[in-house]
């Protein structure tokens, strides 16, 4: 009877039922095994295997040194401070954009200023802070604070906060702008003052976002490598720089591995906690049923004034820092000979030409491959059911959760010998970037798939289309905007990241970021500034291109998501 056969066919394994899916899963698992799991296993091996057997000897040796204990403490202390300050500032900026009646151009300006640190290499604020607040810095002189030692906690804290608060801003403004305005109306109509409404409605509803932002910033600061390398100084050791110095200075791979293992624990804790938070249902509900959308209620007076003052001071300071870099790139020797010159740019475009092209080539390759991979992984995670789905999802995100330094060290350990002898190749750089930064792409694909009502795919099937046609005619066109968003993030990071790749660059492949670091360590501030300017301009142009592509892709659909929600509304 055909019925029995059909039921059997249904129960048959994934291989027979959906060979394309099976192939995709196997390919993904293989690449994850080589580029994520193998390096991690090697790192754990280097930490825990001494003379062929399991041992804590490496770890105890490292922890035994007071200097390393301080590094661990400093890392966590700094991350806590940066995440708190960065989230607070980000929240104030987000409030100013979503909850005030300031003129549009002002809001636009604020938004644009916060983008600057996002698209800059991690050194930018470090360089200009050194020029302004470092030894002989112009602000110090202007304020008459001649001998203030800026290196150490305060310099690192300031620089990291300025670098990372835009992340908090983006996250929180997204949450603030998707809240239901009717809640504001309801609170006010029940007699609450604006202040009470803010305390009892807006703030509690922002809490999941605030918690998420704190975790995100904590992880970023914990992993940050470039800033403390330049601004930390000898008196403020932290783990990533210690691990780096252990390896590049002392050629102690085992010590470096053990130090980075210490970093893995808090990083993974943050990652797991974040997943737990995201896993819980968000308070934010977009029902689309709320008829005419009214406006958000404005901030209470005192908060608006505080917000205005903070946003103003910080915006001016950021602009000032960027102006300093620009100025620095055009003077002969900073604060010694301030006459105008183009020689640094000439240097960048001759001597640095290779770095520019290498960086672009690697970034573009990584972006294209990484995006394709994130579409495939995101799609099968969200829409397909198979045995190893949860583990696959977790493993694919692992490198993203680990600090760059850890990934860099793990990659050296894994790819320095056969069968995967990749050191010195472009492949290792591309792989490091893809598997570290495609996570955002995967997440945005998953998120947009979640928002696409499965009934669209069911409709396609009920109209006679098979699954391949449904995927390419219905699903893919609808997620293109979020794929582009993931590409944008991937590209920016491939252009500006350094923590992992500092271990992986070679004579054959150099990167702009490593050139900036070299210039800084050689105290060639003007050269570093010129490199930074070129890098920022390149990223900015690419970013603008990507943004206009996103606009173009959503224009035809006419804001897909709103439309989907409107459909289910009255």
């Amino acid at each position: 009877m055909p019925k029995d056969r059909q039921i059997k066919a249904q129960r048959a394994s994934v291989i027979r039922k959906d060979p394309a899916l099976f192939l995709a899963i196997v390919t993904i698992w293989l690449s994850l095994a080589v580029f994520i799991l193998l390096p991690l296993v090697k790192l754990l091996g280097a930490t825990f295997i001494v003379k062929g057997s399991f041992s804590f000897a490496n770890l105890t040796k490292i922890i035994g040194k007071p200097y390393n204990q301080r590094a661990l403490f400093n890392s966590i202390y700094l991350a806590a401070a940066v995440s708190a300050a960065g989230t607070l500032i980000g929240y104030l900026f987000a409030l100013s954009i979503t909850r005030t009646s300031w003129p549009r151009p002002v809001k636009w300006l604020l938004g644009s200023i916060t983008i600057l640190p996002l698209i800059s290499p991690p050194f930018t604020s470090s360089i200009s802070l050194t020029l302004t607040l470092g030894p002989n810095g112009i602000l110090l002189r202007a304020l008459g604070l001649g001998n203030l030692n800026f290196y150490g906690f305060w310099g690192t804290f300031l620089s990291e906060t300025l670098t990372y608060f835009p992340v908090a801003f983006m996250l929180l403004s997204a949450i603030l702008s998707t809240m239901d305005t009717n809640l504001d109306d309801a609170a006010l109509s029940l007699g609450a003052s604006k202040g009470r409404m803010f305390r009892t409605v807006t703030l509690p509803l922002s809490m999941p976002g605030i918690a998420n932002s704190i975790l995100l910033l904590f992880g970023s600061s914990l992993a940050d490598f470039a800033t403390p390398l330049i601004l930390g100084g000898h008196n403020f050791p932290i783990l990533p720089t210690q691990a780096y110095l252990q390896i590049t200075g002392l050629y102690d791979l085992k010590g470096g591995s053990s130090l980075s293992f210490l970093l893995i624990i808090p990083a993974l804790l943050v990652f797991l906690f974040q997943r737990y938070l995201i896993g819980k249902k968000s308070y934010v509900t977009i029902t689309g049923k709320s008829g005419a959308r009214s406006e958000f209620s404005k901030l209470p007076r005192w908060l608006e004034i505080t917000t205005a003052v903070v946003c103003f001071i910080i915006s001016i300071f950021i602009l000032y820092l960027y102006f300093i870099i620009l100025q620095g790139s055009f003077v002969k020797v900073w604060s010694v000979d301030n006459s105008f010159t183009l020689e640094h740019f000439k240097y960048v475009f001759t001597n640095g030409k290779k770095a520019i092209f290498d960086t672009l080539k690697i970034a573009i390759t990584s972006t294209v491959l990484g995006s394709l991979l994130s579409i495939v992984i995101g799609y099968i995670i969200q829409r397909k059911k198979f045995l190893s789905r949860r583990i696959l999802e977790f493993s694919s995100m692992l490198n993203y959760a680990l600090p760059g330094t850890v990934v860099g060290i793990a990659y050296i350990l894994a790819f320095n010998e056969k069968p995967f002898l990749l050191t010195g190749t472009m492949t290792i750089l591309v792989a490091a970037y893809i598997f570290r930064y495609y996570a955002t792409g995967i997440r945005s694909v998953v998120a947009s798939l979640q928002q696409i009502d499965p009934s669209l795919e069911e409709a396609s099937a009920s109209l006679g289309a098979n699954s391949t046609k449904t995927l390419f005619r219905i699903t893919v066109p609808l997620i293109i905007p979020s794929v582009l968003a993931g590409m944008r993030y991937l590209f920016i990071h491939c252009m500006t990241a350094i923590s992992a790749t500092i271990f992986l660059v070679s004579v054959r492949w150099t990167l702009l970021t490593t050139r900036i670091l070299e210039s800084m360590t050689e105290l060639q501030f003007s050269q570093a500034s010129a490199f930074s300017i070129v890098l920022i301009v390149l990223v900015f142009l690419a970013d603008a291109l990507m943004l206009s592509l996103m606009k173009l892709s959503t224009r035809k659909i006419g804001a897909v998501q709103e439309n989907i929600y409107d459909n289910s509304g009255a």
Partner: protein
Amino acid sequence: MTTAALNLIDVTKIFQKGRGKTAAVDSISLNVKQGEMVVFLGPSGCGKTTTLRMIAGFELPSSGRILIDGADMTNVPVNKRGIGFVFQNYALFPHMSVYSNVAYGLRSRKEPEGIIRQKVHNALELVGLANAGERYPNQLSGGEQQRVALARVLVMEPKLLLMDEPLSNLDAKLRIYMRTEIRRIQKKLGITCLYVTHDQSEALTMADRIVVMNRGYVEQMGSPFDIYAQPASLFVADFIGQANILRVTVDSVEQDTASVSLPSGWRHSAKMIGSSKIRSGKEAALVVRPENLHIEALPVPEGQGKSNAPFNLLKATVRAVVFMGGHIEYHLDLGTTGKGIAFMPFQSGVHVFQEGDKVQAIIDPDTSLILPSE
């Protein structure tokens, strides 16, 4: 002998809920004739949508068989079943124009472009949107989107049209307009249609046959008239239309009628349904539609001449008076018996009772029913 357009044979769907298993649909069997409009009606979670999705092929039944035009479709994928499905949220493809949406299925079937154009045009004309082809779904109102969704399905000339609460997102007026519109098109094309709704007036106005479902079971199947006038269970009586349900004691049972009484001494006899469960001396439920419950002024002032008080007298106090235009809704307090509602037709000059008035409720034996208590 003609084969039925659809046969459901003991169709069951079991969902894993936490540790336990629950039957969302519990062995439903049903035959649907060619061209018939069958409406599944029930509260949310009663299994009506799951049943429809199994017929469509979005879900596979845990057991049982589904036959469309006599052919076993139990395990055939959706895109091979030749059904048309209209979704609650319409599921129009937002990145395609109205024309492309309607042409989508025909293109899957690889029909020639010239024929597609003609068919799409006809379909859009049928739903009254002949000029909307170039527009995008987000430029249409809810009712227009709904009609595009209908056109997209009708253009395929499906053997079976399945509709999952298609009107629930429309406003009240449009809903009433659309349900006659859908019924008109369905009759004109002679298409077999299964329609899911939780709106009883939609079911009563549209259906050839109503299937009332509750907790995965079929409570009653029948024409709108039967369902309304002769509900098979208290659930159906309560769910379809409004009903006064009085807890009564059975005094005596005859062939198909029973005599019942209230502790106050009031007596009544009416037709029984489900007579096997009704025994003398036991409790039962007396069901009366509000339009069959009349109220009148009390014939004699209270407390006088007990002996000549009429036998069939149910005392009530008016609790609220709601003017509905065509009729007046009286909310009554029936003393120990509970509460009740009576609809009285309104004409100018008719006496309107006031809140607090003592009245008597009169129940017509022909339009009331006695059902088992549970």
